[in-house]
């Protein structure tokens, strides 16, 4: 038997910088959870009444679900279209999707105000709500993914019966998964269709559901390529190069359809000129479309890039970044201008998001160690690229340096974009919001309105036994008709409601002499004071 330390190492591997960073991030995330659940969303996030959805919805939910789309795309490819050579990709993508949805739910528990009610849509129906539909689909699809993943668990433990059971229903399961995914991937876009006039016209469109669906497919394909590359680096396990290249080709088609659809839509809504004006929105739009759609299209479509594993990985990364920026643009950039405020996620919001991503990587790594995620036969097939395509000698050095240079330039562009976004987000709140306090806004009719004032009738307080005489209060003598401020007296003690019982606790001599009630103004400063020789001023 192994010792505890060896066991730890078997499970978690060697101690590295990234693992240390992950540990720190998770520790801060636990603190964030404490702040969120004991002090509220206001204390833990930069959300506000003007900006109720931020990073946790924009990234954790919208991006999370979209990046998990590889699950249904590959499952459909293998089990419906029966292109069975993709079978070996299916397992890691389904695992990614399954983890993705679980993490989306974890993120939701942070974001929801009353997370223990998360199950309410099961019994409290509102079929008119897009969110209701999304909730149901996510619930059902997570179950489908669990079942799609379950054969690996059954195989691992050699449980034959349940394995056969799941295999029998696998095709219907996959079809159900595709239908559910079609529904909620698109519906996440539909969520924003009701935000007409709030979401910036560069993103607002009745076609949002189609856009979300197409970009999710492209993102899912890119994610499969990305994962394969990362898995090779981490576990020495990878998938066949030609399979991945074909995924790249498919991504080109999907991205092209998306770009064309978007272009004609912008044209037909007379918004095409908007993309050439220099605004924070158009900058982010170009970041998304230029660097995240058009550029990867070109890269994927170029055989030399596609056949180079770094090139393929790089194009996939761009596609994923493009998808992330798209979802953040819809959720944050596009909602900023109309909100009248500026939003940038708080430190704790970012840490929670980062640790959820980190948790995703960690659990994926553990699952790969524990379950047969990557088919054994291909594990040692490291030489995925035919030798003929490998450049040699000086040419190789050049070929190596070129992608490195390209990468540096693009990394720079992204950094610029993100810095630009931060600056814009930080400065945009100023100079915004109403010009309506301007002095020129004077309604001349208003001067006459004091005449309309119908103050309540005089009120005589019940006389106490020790009182020198009854007190009758008159609003006429207490209210400045041109500038009435009811709350001066109706501040909680003198009630506005329930005529005839204006007081809480009764009007007593003792309270008056304590400086309470009438005496809070009748103190000799704000109004004449109450003393022993002017009783008759009020007691008549």
């Amino acid at each position, binding site marked *: 038997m192994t010792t505890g330390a060896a066991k730890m190492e078997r499970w978690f591997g060697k101690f590295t910088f990234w693992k240390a960073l992950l540990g720190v991030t998770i520790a801060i995330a636990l603190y964030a959870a404490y702040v969120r659940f004991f002090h509220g969303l206001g204390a833990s996030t930069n959300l506000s009444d003007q900006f109720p959805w931020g990073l946790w919805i924009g990234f954790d939910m919208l991006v999370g679900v979209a990046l998990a789309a590889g699950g249904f795309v590959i499952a459909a490819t293998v089990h419906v279209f029966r292109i069975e050579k993709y079978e070996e990709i299916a397992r890691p993508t389904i695992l990614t999707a399954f983890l993705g949805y679980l993490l989306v739910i974890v993120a939701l528990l942070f974001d929801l105000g009353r997370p223990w009610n998360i199950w309410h849509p099961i019994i409290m129906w509102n079929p008119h709500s897009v969110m209701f539909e999304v909730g149901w689909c996510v619930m059902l699809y997570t179950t489908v993914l669990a079942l799609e993943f379950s054969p690996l668990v059954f195989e691992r433990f050699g449980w034959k019966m349940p394995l056969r059971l799941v295999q029998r229903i696998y095709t219907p399961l996959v079809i159900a998964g595709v239908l559910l995914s079609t529904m909620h991937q698109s519906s996440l876009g539909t969520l924003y269709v009701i935000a007409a006039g709030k979401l910036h016209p560069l993103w607002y469109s009745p076609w949002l559901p189609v856009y979300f669906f197409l970009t999710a497919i492209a993102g899912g394909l890119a994610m499969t390529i990305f994962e394969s590359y990362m898995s090779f680096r981490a576990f020495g396990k990878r998938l066949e190069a030609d399979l991945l290249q074909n995924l790249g080709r498919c991504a080109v088609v999907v991205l092209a359809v998306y770009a064309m659809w978007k272009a004609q839509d912008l044209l037909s809504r007379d918004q095409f000129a908007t993309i050439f004006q220099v605004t924070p929105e158009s900058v982010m739009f170009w970041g998304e479309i230029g660097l995240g759609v058009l550029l990867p299209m070109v890269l994927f479509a170029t055989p030399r890039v596609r056949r180079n594993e770094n090139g393929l990985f790089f194009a996939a990364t761009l596609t994923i970044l493009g998808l992330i920026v798209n979802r953040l643009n819809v959720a944050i950039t596009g909602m900023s201008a109309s909100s009248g405020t500026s939003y940038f996620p708080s430190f704790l919001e970012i840490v929670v998001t980062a640790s959820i991503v980190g948790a995703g990587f960690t659990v994926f790594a553990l699952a790969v160690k524990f379950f047969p995620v990557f088919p054994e036969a291909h594990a040692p097939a490291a030489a995925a690229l035919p030798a003929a395509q490998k450049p040699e000698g000086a040419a190789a050095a050049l070929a190596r340096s070129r992608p490195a240079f390209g990468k540096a330039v693009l990394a720079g562009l992204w950094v610029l974009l993100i810095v630009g976004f931060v600056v814009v987000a930080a400065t945009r709140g100023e100079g915004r919001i109403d010009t309506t306090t301007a002095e020129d806004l004077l309604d001349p009719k208003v001067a006459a309105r004091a005449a309309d004032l119908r103050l309540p009738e005089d009120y005589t307080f019940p006389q106490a036994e020790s009182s020198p005489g009854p007190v009758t209060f008159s609003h006429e003598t207490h209210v400045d008709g041109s500038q009435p*401020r009811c709350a001066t007296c109706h501040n909680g003690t003198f009630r506005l409601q329930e005529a005839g019982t204006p007081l809480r606790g009764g009007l007593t001599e003792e309270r008056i002499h304590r400086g309470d009630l009438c005496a809070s103004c009748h103190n000799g400063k704000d109004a004449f004071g109450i003393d022993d020789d002017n009783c008759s001023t009020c007691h008549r």
Partner: protein
Amino acid sequence: MKVGILTDLTKCVGCEACVWACKEINELPREDGAARLSGTTWTAIERHGNVNVRRQCMHCEEPACASVCPVAAFQKTPEGPVIYLPDRCMGCRYCMIGCPFGMPKYEWDKPLPLVRKCILCYETRVKNGGQPACTAACPAGATIFGERDALIREARRRIEAEPGRYVDHVYGISEAGGTSVLYLSGVPFEKLGFRVDVREDPYPKLTWDILSKLPSVISVWGVSLLGIWWITHRRDDVAEAESHGHGGSAAGPDKDRH
């Protein structure tokens, strides 16, 4: 009978009686003041120049909040008020995204917050034939409660009687498909922070037009997938049968290739 509120901004003296009456009847903390809507201020007096603008939930005829809520925590009552059922709420805040007027506010400082907005004193007053605390408290007759149709007639009568006093528009008759809360103003509404780009169609229609098509899309998509599967499946089986010589079970059961 559909009820509503008519607020005549040319008559509002800005005394805030409505605000404090609201806080009193709903037992809301007073610290937040009266100047802007929040989780603890369900009606507010915004000062725009010398015009006082009393804001509150518009109580749409077809409310976006009720349409978007996944658990139906917002409901339009037959009388008109849009009410909130806190026990249902899971706190997704989609209502805040969906509302074209930005009325639902949140309890950001509470660990387990609720959505907050004017509920037109439905349970406490309106359901029993009373009027809301705010209109009851108004000393200037600037905000009045009544039957919505009667209020619209009254608003039009006022504009007709004193055309110089009002802009020729009753805000709320057609905005967002019509609202229970109506406004008259002496200056253009856009100068007072009112959204004038709101659609005349009800907002729920936007998403329902898409959502209601899902069953058709999904049934066609589902049949297509099944069809594709049937063809590819059959093709495989035929190929398999041929490669095995004359299996004779070309149409036989799936040999489980997973």
